[in-house]
């Protein structure tokens, strides 16, 4: 480890960033609950139109990717680079799978003419316009986070291949893992709000 590196300090920095992320999504969750409170019937109708099977599948995918992420960190700490990079690769693969299913879902909705400002959506009630506006904004922002996470994890995989992340120096991988788990956690809340609570 480089003598100028401070693992605890970098982890604290990562956590501070994650806390600001919680407040960012928290603001959107408050917006969601306020509009839901004002338009219960429209939100009920909106949630029934989303594909619950795809939503559940994506939940299982992200949870499993969190598992492979955590296992990858444990195995590099034990010096098993081969297993660790394999698990990291699995995490990246599952992240891509999540995004693929998400974009498929979006494409299906857009094909039905349901997207922000679409004539068909604007013809519906105000509450449904709000529901789909929040759906696209919140799952979109979350998807963007998954995409950023995938870039970061790919960089970590390259560093691991080069041996720059190893049994002694693994703090960058740990911090990337923290970010990945947070993205998973945001989805854990998005899933019931948009797909389950009708």
């Amino acid at each position, binding site marked *: 480890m480089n003598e100028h590196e401070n693992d605890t300090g970098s982890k604290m920095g990562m956590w501070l960033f994650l806390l600001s992320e919680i407040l960012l999504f928290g603001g959107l969750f408050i917006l969601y609950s*306020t509009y839901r409170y*004002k338009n219960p019937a429209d939100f009920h109708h909106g949630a029934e139109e989303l594909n619950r099977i795809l939503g559940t599948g994506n939940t299982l995918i992200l*949870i499993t990717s969190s598992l492979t992420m955590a296992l990858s960190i*444990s195995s590099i700490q*034990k010096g098993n680079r081969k297993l660790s990079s394999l698990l990291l690769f699995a995490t990246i693969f599952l992240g891509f799978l999540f995004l693929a299913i998400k974009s498929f879902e979006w494409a299906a909705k857009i094909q039905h003419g349901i997207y922000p400002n679409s004539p068909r959506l604007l013809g519906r009630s105000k509450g449904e316009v709000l529901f789909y506006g929040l759906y696209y904004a919140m799952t979109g922002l979350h998807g963007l986070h998954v995409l950023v996470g995938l870039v970061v994890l790919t960089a970590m995989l390259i560093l691991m291949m080069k041996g720059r992340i190893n049994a002694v120096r693994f703090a960058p991988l740990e911090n990337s893992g923290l970010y990945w788990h947070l993205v998973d956690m945001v989805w*854990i809340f998005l899933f019931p709000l948009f797909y389950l*609570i*009708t």
Partner: protein
Amino acid sequence: MSLPIGASTYLPSLGGRDIFGGEGIFEGSRVKTIRYRTYVLVWLGLIVLTGITVSLAGMNLRSLSIFLPLLIAAAKSGLVLSYFMHLRYETGLFFKLMIPIVLATLTIFIGLTFTDVAFR
């Protein structure tokens, strides 16, 4: 939870190595290497909770239909925070206090918003 050192025989295909026991050390005793089995159990817990919340969605729970899924989501994120994100194993005031402070901030924010929306 303590982290017992001990071999278990989960993936014997890995050459019989004891990959489950042992504790790595990070910054003194700050972060321990967590056993694979612990993670797999947490993952199973998350899958079961997902199954419960999805099957509850098909039932007519009336007033509980919003509260229960959110409670389950909170339990799931509690598992992720304490095990996957290692908060359970962290020491020091910074790590102990940060989540409660953020949750308190959000709660106050939600409370104030709803007193505004409900009594407007």
